[in-house]
């Protein structure tokens, strides 16, 4: 069995364009020294603020963005070495669900056309009756019915559209699903339906998933493991439950403290950790140093490195993981 995703020491920066001669500074990397692994049937959550590079990382895994150095293996294939034909083959195994179901479905195609397009491209289910059966099964799997097949996306609500997008991603029976904030554009009552659906489907179809979210509660519900990203780096990874019970990186703690809880009494007692810029980062290698409340000039100078602090728990902080006290914001 091959590992669905294996990333080692990945670096990526965007070319700024313009005349090379004049730009003295190197392009700033948007992904820096990232090593991650998504195992067989595992759901890995990527959590972080906007602009931290979660979506860029997903695009790299999908082969939609190039990268400068490091290795990204999807189903055992190194993406850098893949030819066009190789990519087409890989796409049968890796599919994606985007955040906004209003812009990710072609408004001029019926649901039938949307769902059949992947099959046309990969020459599957050429036989009419067979295809009809497969279609019916597919829409049933995502909780829609066959009557919906001849309608256009605008006739559906946000939740139903996201179901269509999920059906499209499942059409080729992929092994890996990349889901980029698939529920953040949905209403609360519908969000729960889609989360349940994603969980059921990933189990029933033995899917692996790279799940991007900015919401810890959502990530906890769905993910086996969570990686916390900040400014293009992974600062902490741990099994989902462990991360929430025992957050070790100051940034993870700050993020957790900012999540409001739907309980007036409890919420009044919670005080978010101050995360304003407090000092110049200088030559400190830690990207969070400028906002960190545990900053210690001497200790924070060592190169950033994910160190194992407990079984399966990795944290890239030079100060905090060695403190024994439990975080106030652990759940």
């Amino acid at each position, binding site marked *: 069995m091959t590992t669905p995703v294996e990333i080692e020491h990945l670096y990526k920066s965007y070319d700024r364009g313009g005349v090379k001669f004049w730009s003295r500074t190197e392009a700033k990397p948007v992904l820096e020294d990232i090593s991650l692994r998504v195992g067989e049937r595992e759901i890995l959550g990527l959590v972080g*603020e906007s602009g931290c590079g979660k979506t860029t990382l997903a695009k790299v895994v999908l082969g939609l963005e190039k990268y400068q150095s490091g290795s990204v293996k999807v189903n055992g294939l190194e993406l850098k070495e893949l030819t066009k034909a190789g990519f087409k083959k890989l796409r049968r195994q890796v599919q994606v669900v985007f955040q906004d179901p209003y812009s990710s479905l072609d408004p001029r195609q019926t649901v039938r056309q949307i769902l059949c397009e992947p099959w046309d491209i990969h020459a599957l289910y050429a036989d009419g009756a067979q295809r009809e059966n497969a279609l019916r099964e597919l829409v049933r799997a995502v909780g829609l019915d066959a009557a919906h097949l001849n309608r256009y996306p605008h006739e559906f*609500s*946000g939740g139903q559209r996201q179901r269509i997008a999920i059906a499209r991603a499942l059409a080729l029976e992929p092994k890996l699903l990349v889901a980029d904030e698939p529920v953040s554009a949905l*209403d609360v*009552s519908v969000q*729960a339906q889609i989360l349940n659906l994603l969980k059921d489907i990933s189990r029933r179809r033995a899917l692996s998933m790279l799940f991007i979210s900015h919401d810890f*509660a959502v990530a906890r519900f769905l993910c086996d493991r969570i990686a916390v990203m900040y400014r293009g780096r992974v600062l902490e990874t741990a099994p989902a439950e462990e991360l929430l019970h025992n957050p070790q990186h100051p940034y993870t703690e700050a993020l957790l*403290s900012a999540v*409001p809880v739907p309980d007036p009494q409890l919420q009044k007692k919670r005080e978010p950790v101050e995360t304003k810029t407090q000092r110049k980062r200088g030559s400190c290698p830690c990207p969070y140093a400028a906002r960190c409340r545990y900053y210690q000039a001497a200790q924070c100078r060592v190169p950033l490195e994910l160190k194992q602090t407990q079984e399966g728990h990795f944290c890239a902080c030079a100060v905090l993981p060695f403190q024994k006290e439990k975080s106030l914001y652990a759940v």
Partner: protein
Amino acid sequence: MNAREDILLSVEDLRVSFRSEEGKTEVLHGLSYRLPKGKVLAVVGESGCGKTVHALSLLNLLPSGGEIAAGHVYYQGKDVLSLPPQELRRLRGAEIAMIFQDPMTSLNPIRTVGSQITETILAHTDCTKLQARARAMRLLKQVGIENPRKRMDEYPFQFSGGQRQRIMIAMALCLTPGLLIADEPTTALDVTIQAQILKLIKNLQQKNHMSAVFITHNLAIVADIADEVLVLYGGYCVEEARADELFAKPLHPYTQGLLHSLVSLKRKEEHLPAIEGYPPAPGTPKEGCPFAPRCPRAWDKCHDRLPPLFEKNGRRVRCWLQEKDDNSGRN
């Protein structure tokens, strides 16, 4: 209830309809509430339930095609909807300020941030340009924008999303309004920035004794900031209660469903108790309770007749269960 003079805003039987090719559709069916001075009311509901339309009609700002078919909005005893345009203009901005949902589109991209804030101050007070500028700078500092002297002369694109939203807030608060209407002010923001902005609004609200109508779909934010809660569904108020009472014991099945379907940070769940079905599209003609098609406890009567707002112990609930059995409001 409070004495008459303590009521800052009172809305009576507000009905809003939109004209379309098929004729008129009513989207808000008679909304009534009172907001005491210094309190925060949260209006909760899913997309299409009429919460934004309600906010816009408070200041008579409905887009073309929309009209207030009936009802009154009283601010400090004055009927806002029948004010002559000049007086209405004086009220907007100075007395009642509004923050819109999208900070990316509500600032003018070709004017400096400073000029946009001072414009409001100059329009409503008779201070000099220099005084207005000083005041604007103080405000920017207050909402946490560093180096305001320099940033006053920058354009919106030079600010991040969270900063732009804070500029909107500074603009709304520049004349210390008596009432702030905030339409999903933090939906587009990260949790850390959201926590900062909520804290800022709470501080200002306590310091200036300001009232606020807070429109949101996020119940966790409601728990954080609201004194009173109004739950809207399909253009009807379905439940109204004090925030702590609502969270302790929601009476309407929709409110119960909403609270249950929230993904919790506090416990790991296997399956989320989602509300089945989708919210109704605005203007869907129907008889009976708008929530009946999705309600797990609906019976014949719910589908035939619209329940009135039952009033009990200072709470209001639009549900036949209240009439059927006093003890049926299980949590």
